[in-house]
């Protein structure tokens, strides 16, 4: 940076800094997506369905299996909606 730049100050953010921030955001996003859903999820969902349907009448659509990634751990979320008339 020249003395003139310092004296008259260029307040705009340097473009390299913008580049770094943009890359950090997009790569964090793409790295999460890259691993994708593990391939056992559909099988897990099917087998859960088999077990549960022995006891309760549920549809395949009523079971949701999701895997979410947070910083250093993964959360396996299984959501089963039981039919209302059973209650």
């Amino acid at each position: 940076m020249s003395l003139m730049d310092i004296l008259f100050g260029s307040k705009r953010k340097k473009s390299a800094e913008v580049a770094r921030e943009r890359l950090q955001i997009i790569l964090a996003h793409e790295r999460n997506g890259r691993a994708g859903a593990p391939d056992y999820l559909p099988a897990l969902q099917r087998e859960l369905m088999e077990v549960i349907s022995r006891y309760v009448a549920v549809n395949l659509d009523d079971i949701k299996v999701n895997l979410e990634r947070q910083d250093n751990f993964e959360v396996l979320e299984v959501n089963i909606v039981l039919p209302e008339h059973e209650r």
Partner: protein
Amino acid sequence: MAKIIVVTSGKGGVGKTTTSASFASGLALRGHKTVVIDFDVGLRNLDLIMGCERRVVYDLINVVNNEATLNQALIKDKNCDNLYVLPASQTRDKDALTEEGVEKVLNDLATMNFDFIVCDSPAGIEKGALMALYFADEALIVTNPEVSSVRDSDRILGILSSKSRRAIEGREPVKEHLLITRYSPSRVEKGEMLSVDDVKEILRVSLLGVIPESQVVLQASNSGTPAIHLKGTDASEAYADVVSRFLGEDRPMRFLDVPKVGLLKRLFGG
């Protein structure tokens, strides 16, 4: 045991072939029997950069298809005794590269006592690029300090860790080395270009070297002489350092700072 090194980047035009040519030449200059293979079927250019384009008779696909032997297809380099070039086919379609075929070529090269097999990957993430990296033991990730190149390098790192043979077989992962090319310290100082530290931090790969933006690279390609042979130039020295570090020697990073300028220039900018 021959060590297989892929030179890859995802993005095109960042210096893969330039790097493959100088890196392979550098290994050979240090006494290692080396072969450099062009995997860019249909768009071969390694032969031009190595200056052997008029001596190409047979190519990688001919060898894969048993239309020629390896000995017929290998071109002995004009500058180094221990170096051979295996050109890509200019006419065949890239589906001709099969996993079995490439594996056989690599195995045959290993039995010919090559120390290093350098695979010059095409750009992209199609078959040719996947075949170039599939068998790799180590990878040079060539990256320009620029957003699209860094992003594509990150993508290639993901592919190396999921689709290489080492990854699929659950062996020790491919050893990754970052090589930053076309680096301009003066632009970094002005805040116009990502710094070496920025790129290292984003990609999280150990740095093997930095090649400065240099007029020498174009002169080298014009004459068909790998840049490392243009003794005394910045690019040549930088590539020689890369080779030394790759061989386990300790060399400080160079070409990271702007040469000092005088007071007047500093006052009025430059």
